[in-house]
Every structure is written in C-alpha cells, then in structure tokens.
C-alpha cells in the first residue's frame, strides 16, 4: 500500500477514535454531536453534487430532492419496523429497488444496441416497465413480509434494528439513484441552465408531494406538512463516519480512473470529448445517478439523526446549500467539499447560534450572505481552490528514464 494511502486511512481512523472518545466521555454534548452528524450528511450530499457539477459540469439543483426522497424512504422503512416489527415497508422497497435496478440495467444493455434512441421515448419505456415492476414488488413484498418479519424478530432487538437501518439507507440511496436515472434521461439533454431549472423543479415537486404525503400519497404515517415522527435515532458517529469514508474513497478511486477522466472530459469540452470517443450522454447520466445515490444515502442517514422529518427541511431554498458548500470549498476539490461542509455546519448552525445573543438569531442570515458575498468577491475559486489532501490528489506516474536526454524545443514560455 502506498504511503499516502496509509497516512490517509491512519488519519481517518485517528479522527474517528478521537471524536468517538470525546463523545463517549461526554466531552461533546448532544448539540455538537448533532452538528457533527449533520456536517457528515452535508458532506456526502456535497460530494455527490461535486461529482455532478464540479467534475461533470452539470448544474443540478435537484440534489436536495433526492436527499428528501432518501430521507423519507429510509425513515418509513425503520418507522414500521420500530412501530410493530413489521418488515413490509422494507420488503416492498427492497424488491422494488432491486427489480427496477435490474430492469434498468437490462434495458440499458438492450437499448445500447439500437443507434440513436430518442431520450424521451426511452424514458417512456423505462417508466412503463418501472411502474409495472413496482406494482409487482408491492404484491410480492406484502406476501413475503410476515416471513421476513418473523426471521428478523429472531435476532436480538438492537441487531435487527441496525440491520433494518443499514438496508433502509442502502435502499434510500438506490431509490434516489433510480429515480434520478429516469428523470435525468430526458432532462439531461437540456442545456446547462435549463437542466438546473428542471432539477430545481424536481426538488419543488418532491417537497409538494411530501407536504401532502398523507393525502395525495398513500403514506399517512408521514403526516404531510405536520412532520413525521417515530423514526428511530440510529445514526451515530460510527455510521456517519463509515458512510462518509467509503464514499470519499469511492469518489476518489473513480475519479482517478479512466471513467473519472471521461466524466471530467465532459466538463472540460463536450465537443472534444465526443470527438475522442466519449459517450457524453452516458457519463452525464452516470455522474448524475451516482451523485443522486449519495444524496439518497445522506438522506437515509439524516432521517435517523433526530428521528423527525419535516417537509420544510427539504424546501427548495435549502437546495442551494449543497451548491454553496461545494462552491465555497472549491469546485472539483474533494478536500474542499469535506472542509466546507464541516465549516459550514459548525459556523452556521453552531457558532453563530451560540455567539449571537439571544433574540438576534435572524442576524445569522444577515451575516451569512455577507460572508458569502465577500468570499465570492475575494476568492471566486472557493476557499480551498484546487487544494487536495495527498491521498485524494492525482499522482502523476513517473516517467521511464529515457535513453538519451533530448532537447525539448526551445520555445520560451511567457
């Protein structure tokens, strides 16, 4: 293993242990632990958005919508489990996600043989198949639910909850990813600003649906605009840290591969990328789906921090937060996104709330935009610019020693 990798993993382990110890010994109160978890969740959403916007160049304002989908999906699954040890929500969602995922992969393979498929037609086809499969999953899931519930109940309470929670978060991510695939199919063909607006539309539509989840959607337990309660508070420092670490490594590994370079080439110059044999539609879709997967996972984690979900959390105004975070941290910088998420959560949620005297909370949002303005004016490339930790940085492969040193052309660089 390389030295940078060792340093990185060692450093990560150290941070985890120190923070965990501080929590265990009560050095960090709930307020700060909460911010810590929130920051990790923001970091995951931010990494996803950075992949989409910072690395692939697609201006998405929809990540907050996928975050919301993930939160409510995961929350609903664990809600039913805690309420009456029923795995029906788990089974339905699991089967739906698996069936649809398999169908999407299969259809994609088939469609890739047909040249020049119209995006909207493909979308229609996928939609019909997905709706059909979701219907089947509902029937099958309900049929299987008693057996699975029984099996899970055999495990000790704590363990079964952790398993259901873990599955719920994964399902949340996959669900967000699959919805983003469907949505992105036609919408990614739009130009950059229009894509942004359409994804903003998605965030707003999701919020409206959540506001009316009890009346318009068949989820009375979500209680619409009154907010959903009864979700177990499972997300702790271990889970938040583990998910964040895995996602950082996945993003890093992906970016430092040919696939990552293909993703970045789309941002750099679409026309040149096409001319180099890169299927840009595929890579736009890929990064959008991956980014949304992360948003869904983050949502799943978020739902289990406070055990309470409210549609206002997923207001479209807040959908700018991840965008602000990644721009502050520096577009195309993983380290920047991590740093900015934690800084943002601590300063905005923590310090400003603690420092400002009672009754002047609104000043927070007067000071915050001013800081934002100043940073944009003074450091338009973000606070960290393109700085990366050594492990996250791309290392140039060494050159093989050449037989004889040739003179490079003596062109003077200005």
């Amino acid at each position, binding site marked *: 293993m390389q030295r940078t990798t060792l340093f990185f993993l060692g450093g990560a382990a150290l941070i985890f242990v120190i923070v965990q110890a501080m929590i265990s010994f009560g050095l960090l109160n709930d307020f700060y632990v909460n911010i810590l978890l929130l920051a990790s969740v923001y970091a995951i959403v931010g990494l996803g958005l950075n992949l989409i916007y910072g690395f692939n160049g697609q201006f998405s304002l929809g990540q907050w919508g996928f975050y919301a989908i993930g939160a409510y999906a995961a929350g609903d699954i664990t809600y039913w489990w805690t309420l009456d040890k029923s795995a029906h929500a788990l089974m339905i969602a699991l089967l739906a996600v698996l069936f649809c995922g398999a169908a999407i992969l299969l259809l994609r393979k088939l469609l890739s043989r047909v040249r020049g498929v119209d995006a909207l037609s493909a979308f229609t086809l996928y939609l019909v198949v997905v709706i059909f499969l979701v219907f089947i999953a509902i029937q099958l899931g309900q049929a299987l639910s008693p057996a699975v519930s029984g099996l899970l109940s055999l495990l000790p309470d704590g363990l079964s909850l952790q398993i259901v929670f873990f599955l719920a978060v994964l399902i949340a991510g996959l669900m967000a990813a699959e919805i983003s695939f469907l949505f992105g199919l036609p919408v990614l063909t739009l130009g950059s600003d229009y894509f942004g607006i359409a994804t903003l539309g998605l965030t707003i539509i999701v919020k409206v649906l959540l506001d009316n989840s009890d009346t318009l959607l068949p989820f009375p337990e979500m209680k619409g605009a009154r907010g959903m309660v009864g979700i177990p508070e499972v997300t702790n420092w271990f889970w938040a840290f583990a998910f964040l670490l895995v996602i950082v490594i996945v993003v890093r590994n992906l970016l430092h591969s*040919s696939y990552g370079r293909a993703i970045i080439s789309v941002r750099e110059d679409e026309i040149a990328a096409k001319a180099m044999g890169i299927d840009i539609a595929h890579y736009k879709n890929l990064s959008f789906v991956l980014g949304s997967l992360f948003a869904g996972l983050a949502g799943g984690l978020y739902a289990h921090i406070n055990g309470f979900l409210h549609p206002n959390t997923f207001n479209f105004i807040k959908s700018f937060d991840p965008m602000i975070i990644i721009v502050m941290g520096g577009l195309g910088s993983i380290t920047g996104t991590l740093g900015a998420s934690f800084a943002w959560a601590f300063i905005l949620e923590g310090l400003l709330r603690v420092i400002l005297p009672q009754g002047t909370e609104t000043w927070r949002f007067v000071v915050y935009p001013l800081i934002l303005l100043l940073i944009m004016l003074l450091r338009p490339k973000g606070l960290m610019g393109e700085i990366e930790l050594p492990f996250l940085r791309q290392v140039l492969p060494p050159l093989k020693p050449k037989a004889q040193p040739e003179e490079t052309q003596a*062109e003077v660089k200005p």
Partner: protein
Amino acid sequence: MSDAIPPRPAPPADAPPLLTAQNLTKEFGGLRAVHNFEKTIHTGELVGLIGPNGAGKTTIFNMITGVYVPTSGSVIFNNQDITGIAPHEINQLGIARTFQNIRLFPNLTVLDNVRIAYHPHAGYSMSDAILHNAHFNQKEKELTERAQEFLGVFNLQDRQGEIAKNLPYGEQRRLEIARALAAYPKLLLLDEPAAGMNPAESMALMDLIHFIRERFNLTILLIEHQMRVVMGICEWITVVDFGEVIARGTPQEIQSNPRVIEAYLGPGAAALSQKYRRKKPHAD
C-alpha cells in the same frame, strides 16, 4: 459546373475507398453551407481540402465526424454507412480529428488529455476502477505507459504534468494531434493545423504530418489555409467555394487553375491595383 472540374487521376484500381462522401449537403435554416459535396479517399492518401473563409470546409468535417447530421447525402467509411451516427461512435470506428481553434481539455494535464482518448480501450470495468484492484492497477499502468510513450513520440513527455492550457500554442497543437492519434484511428482529419504558426513552425508541422503518416499508417484529410503547407504535403487537393467543389487535382493542377486563383485572389489583383492607383509619386 462539374464540367469545369478536371478529371481526377484514377486511384490505385484495386484498393476500396476508405471514405466516400456522397452528395453531402448541409443547410442551416435555409442557408446552404455545403452543397452536394463528393469525395473519395483511399487508404494511405494525404488529401487537402482548401477554400476561402466560410466556404464550408469545417462543415464538411463536422458532417464526416457526426457533429452535424447532413441535410442529405451520406458518408461511407470502411464500407459502413456512418451518416447520422453519434460522434463518439464514429471516433471509435476509427476517425479522429483536431479542431480549427484547438479544443484541448484545458484544465487537465497533458498526460490526462491523451489518456482520455484511450478511454474506450481502457480494458477494465467501473467496479475495477472503484475498487482499484490488481486488474485495474495493471491496466491503468499499461494505459499510462502507452500514453507516455505517445507523448514521447510528440516530444511532449517532459510536459506530462503541465496543465494543457498553459502550454505554448505550438505545443497545444502538437498535443491535440497526439490526442487524436492516441486511439489509433484509420483516418485523421486535421482542421487548419498550421493556423497561427510562423513559417518555421509550419515547416516543422509538415515534417510532423509526414512522420505520423508513416509511423501510424494513416490516411489524412487536411483543411488548411496556408497554401505553402497544403501544396507542400498533399497529394490530392479539393477546392471548395460557397459550399461547392470548384476544382480537384494535384497541387500543380490546382495552382494553375484559374477558378482557384479567382476564388482566392478575386478578380486579378493587378487590375484592381490599377483601378485603385493611389496618387503617389512612387506608384509606378
């Protein structure tokens, strides 16, 4: 109109054409940019496409490479109809190109610019990439070494870590050609490679084109403004003006073709000079 075009010397009889453009026409909202363009290119040829600014040369390139779908007509490459196929697929079939106003991936390193061109041949799956497993490491190493070798051919290996947009102009041109060649195309389209070069650089470019043609066994179609370059290296030249072919032939034929002289120079410069004769003591 076609009767004015001198008959083109017969190509080697047995070789099938590598590229055939038939009746290619492109209209932009009623404006005809290219009309009934016909061209056959055989393996191994180095063909020039010349014509005044705005004559439709780049539009022809864009139709061959799939950037534009022709309004009518077809492109046959390697016995396959590639009309209307997506640009990335055309590239994977073996046609690579460079651009008139250099299109590198500006914020990436020189090495990555070339490595991106290898992407369709990377040889590992996305899960390999995410896991960074042994197979990935092996393939990635091969790919990188190949890219470095390639940079070596173009004398850019010491620049591998440089950000592309910071390279001097001449090196950017070379890098763009290197990138186009990285995936071993059969046909290379060069869009004004000598633009902005001085005579010495142009000469070096001509040598480079000759060299890559031999080394990579290439067929080349070249748009160029600098007649010196075109006349110096092309075996066949096609001249377009107002979207139509006005002449084709060898460089010698083209240089003495009155229609070409007119298209490039307008109605006899000497006559105009008489007309606009300035009231100056030294004007004749």
